C-alpha cells in the first residue's frame, strides 16, 4: 500500500484514478464509443425512436442476462433461459387467448393477472428444479440446465403441437406493446428488474452470500452459509426472470411460439461476460450486465442500420464477445 506517498503527488494520483476508473468501467466507455461511432456513420441511429427501439429489443435478453449473472457469480451457468422463456411464453399465451383455438390439446382462458402469475410461478419452478439438481443432486450446473433446456423446449413444442398460439387478448398484448408515461412497458419492466436485482445483489444479504459462494465455497460454508439453499434461490430467480422475458416476448409479438428464444441463452451469457462477470465466479455486477446487453443490442442495431450482411453480423458479434473477454483476462492477468 503506497497510498500515503501518492497523496503528495497529485498528477500521478489523478492518473491512477483514471486508470482505476477505466479498469472498472472500461466497458461503459466502449458502449459510449460505439454509440458515437454509429452516430457519425448513420443519421438514423441517434433518434429517440431508434434508441427506444434498441432498448425495447435489448430488454428481453437483458432480463435473461441478469438471471444468468447471478448463476455465473456462483460459478454456475444457466443454459435453460431461452427454453424456459419459450415454454412460459406459450403457456401464458394459451391462457390469454380471446377464445380457445380449435384442436388445442389442453387449455382454458383466465384473467390476465392469473395467467401472468401462473407463468411466473412456472418459470420459478423450472428454475428451482435446476437449482435442486445442481445443489442437492451435485450435478454440474452446465449439465442440469442443459437438460432443462432440452426438456423445456420439448414441452413447449408438445404443448402447442409445434404451432404458434395467436388471437391474444389486448390486455395481454398491452404488456409488450403499450407504454406508460411515454416509455414502453418492456423498458419499465427491464428497469425495475435491473433495479431490484441490483439491490438484491449489492445491498442485501442474499447478494453477499452469492458472492461468498462464488468466491470461496469452502470459506462460505465455514461462515455458516447454507450453500444449497442459496443456490436453489439463485436458479429459481433466474427461472423467474426467464418467465418475465417470455411473457414480454409473447405479449410484444401477440403470439406464443414454441421456437421463441432459440440460442437466447448464449446471447444472455455473452452480455453477462461482456459486462465483466467472471466465469470463475465471485465477480459480477448488475449495472455492467445491463451495459453488456446494451452493447450487443447497439451493435445489432447499428449493423442493421448500416445494412451489413446478416452473416457478417454474426461474425462481427462473435469477434466482439471474444475480444471483450480477452481484454478482461489480460487485465486480470496483469493484476496477478
Amino acid at each position: 500500500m503506497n497510498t500515503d506517498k501518492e497523496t503528495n503527488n497529485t498528477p500521478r494520483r489523478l492518473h491512477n484514478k483514471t486508470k482505476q476508473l477505466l479498469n472498472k468501467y472500461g466497458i461503459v466507455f466502449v458502449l459510449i464509443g460505439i454509440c458515437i461511432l454509429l452516430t457519425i456513420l448513420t443519421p438514423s441511429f441517434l433518434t429517440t425512436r431508434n434508441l427506444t427501439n434498441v432498448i425495447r429489443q435489448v430488454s428481453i435478453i437483458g432480463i435473461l442476462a441478469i438471471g444468468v449473472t447471478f448463476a455465473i457469480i456462483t460459478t454456475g451457468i444457466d443454459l435453460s433461459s431461452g427454453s424456459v422463456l419459450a415454454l412460459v411464453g406459450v403457456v401464458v399465451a394459451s391462457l390469454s387467448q380471446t377464445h380457445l383455438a380449435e384442436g388445442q390439446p389442453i387449455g382454458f382462458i383466465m384473467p390476465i393477472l392469473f395467467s401472468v402469475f401462473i407463468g411466473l410461478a412456472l418459470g420459478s419452478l423450472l428454475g428451482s428444479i435446476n437449482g435442486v439438481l445442481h445443489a442437492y443432486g451435485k450435478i454440474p450446473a452446465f449439465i442440469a440446465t442443459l437438460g432443462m433446456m432440452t426438456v423445456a423446449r420439448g414441452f413447449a413444442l408438445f404443448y402447442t403441437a409445434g404451432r404458434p398460439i395467436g388471437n391474444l387478448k389486448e390486455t395481454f398484448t398491452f404488456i409488450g406493446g403499450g407504454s406508460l408515461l411515454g416509455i414502453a412497458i418492456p423498458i419499465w419492466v427491464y428497469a425495475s428488474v435491473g433495479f431490484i436485482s441490483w439491490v438484491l445483489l449489492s445491498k442485501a444479504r442474499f447478494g453477499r452470500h452469492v458472492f461468498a459462494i462464488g468466491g470461496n465455497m469452502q470459506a462460505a460454508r465455514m461462515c455458516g452459509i447454507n450453500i444449497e439453499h442459496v443456490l436453489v434461490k439463485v436458479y429459481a430467480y433466474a427461472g423467474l426472470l426467464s418467465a418475465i422475458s417470455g411473457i414480454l416476448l409473447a405479449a410484444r409479438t401477440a403470439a406464443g411460439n414454441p421456437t421463441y428464444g432459440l440460442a437466447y441463452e448464449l446471447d444472455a451469457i455473452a452480455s453477462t461476460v461482456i459486462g465483466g462477470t467472471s466465469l470463475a465466479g465471485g465477480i459480477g455486477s448488475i449495472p455492467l450486465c445491463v451495459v453488456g446487453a446494451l452493447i450487443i443490442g447497439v451493435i445489432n442495431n447499428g449493423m442493421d442500420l448500416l445494412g451489413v450482411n446478416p452473416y457478417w453480423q454474426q461474425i462481427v458479434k462473435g469477434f466482439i464477445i471474444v475480444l471483450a473477454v480477452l481484454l478482461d483476462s489480460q487485465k486480470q492477468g496483469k493484476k496477478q
Partner: protein
Amino acid sequence: MSQQYALEVINVSKSFPGVKALQSVNLKVRKGSIHALMGENGAGKSTLMKILYGIYKKDKGQILLNKKPYRATNTIEAIREGISMIPQEISPVPNLDIASNIFLGQEYTTGKILPLLDKKKIYSKTRELLEALHINLNPKLMMHEVSIANAQLIAIATAVSYNTNLVIMDEPTSALTEQEVEHLFQIIRDLKEKRNISIIYISHKIDEIFSICDEVSVLRDGSFVGSDDIKNIDKQRLISMMVGRSMKDFFHKETTSIGNVLLSVRNFSLTSKFKNISFDLKRGEILGIAGLMGAGRTELMESIFGYSPADTGETYIKGNHISIRSPSDAINQGLGFVTEDRKLTGIFQDLSITDNMIMPDIQHYIKIGLLNKKIIKENCQKQKVSLKIKTPSLQQLIKNLSGGNQQKVLISRWLLIEPDILILDEPTRGIDVGAKAEIHRLIGKLAKSGKAIIMVSSEMPEILSISDRILVMHEGTLSGELLRKDATQEKILKLATGETI
C-alpha cells in the same frame, strides 16, 4: 556405503518475505547411503528439499551432485540431473494403469515419423522394473485400484526408471501398515545396496530412523544443528538436538482465572482421521493442541465445528447436550473458527474487508431487508482499531492486505459474532514477527475476557508460551495432556511421536 559424497549442500540460505527459512545449511549425503533428515515442523526440511528438487531457488550457497555443481531450476531438470522426490502425498493419475503412470512424460514411441505409443515396450520395461524391485503387481492394473502402499512402491519404481542418483522420501510410511513398512524398507535397502542409490529419508518416526538409516542430520529453525553416524547417537540426544532452542522470543502470559467447563467433547471419532477423543474446555482457558502434521488436529477441529461432522461422539456446551451438524449450528452455539489455510477456507479474496468481516453474521446488519452500511462500518471500524489492522480503507479488497492483516480480519470476523468459544488453527502461520506478537497478545486478552480458546499450533514456542493446558495428538489419538507448568518441548515431542513420558 562409500566414503564419497553423492550430494553436498554447502552453506545454503533461503529467505521468504519476512522469514529466513534456511540459514547457511549444510547437508552431506554419502553414495549408497540412507540419510535421515530430522527436525520439527517448520525447521526448514521441506524448503531444503524443494530447493534440491528445483521448486525453489536458493539465495546463497552451493550444491554439488557427484562433485559437480547442481543448479536445477525446475523439477524436470532435477530429474534429468538425477534427483527425484517422492512426496508425502503422492498423486498418480487414477485412470491410467501402472505402466502408463511410471512412464508418464517419458513414454516410448514407435518412431519419429509416426510417434505412437509403443505399448509393448512400455509394458515389458515396466515388468522388468517391477521384477527387479520385487514389486509383485500387474502393469496393467489401473492406478485407482492400487493401495497407497503399492502406489508408494510404484513411485519408487518411477524414480528408478529415471536412473536417479538420489531419492528424497518425505514421510513415506505415514499411511502404511507395519507389514507394508517392512516391505518398503526391504526395497529401500535394495536401492542402496544393489543400485548404489542415495536416499534422503524424512520422517518424524524416530524408531524408523534407527532401523533403516545410516546417518542423520538435524535442522532446527532453518539452521543446521549437526550430523552424525546413526550408531553414535541415541533417541535422547536426537530429540534434544531437534528441540534445543533458546526461548528468548517467549511471550509473557498473564495469569487468568479459569472458570467452569464450557465445552465438552466426548468420544469423537471420524474414520481414518481420529478416534475416541474426549476433552473439556473451560472459560478463560487457552487449550493448546500440539502434534505433528497429519496427527488429525485440524480434522478434529473441523468436526467440532460441524464442517465435517464426526461419525460418533457427543458435544456438550455448558453441560447441555447439543448437536452440531454444520458450521451454522456451531455459530448459533457461539463457536468461532479461524481456519488453518487462510486462502483455502478463510478469505473471500475479491470481497472487501467489511464484507469479509460480516459474512458469518449478516442478518445482524440488516435493516428492512437491506444491509445497514452505518452499523457495518461502526462495527468493522471498532475491530480495525482494536486489532490494529493496517489498511487505508475498510472497502479495500482483502487480497491487497499482508498475510498478518488478513489474519487479523479473519479473527475480527469471528470476534464480531461475539463467540464464547474460539478455535484458532495455526493462528500465526506465515505472518511476520510483529503481527505474530500482536496476535499472541490478543489471544491472551480474549481469554482474560472470559472466552474459551482452543489453539492448534505446530510451533513449540507458541504453544508452550500461550497455553494453559496442552493436549498432544499422535496419529488420530490423544497421546497425552500436559499442564502449563509441566510442559516442555521434549515432552511434547515425545508424545507427538508416540513415545511415552
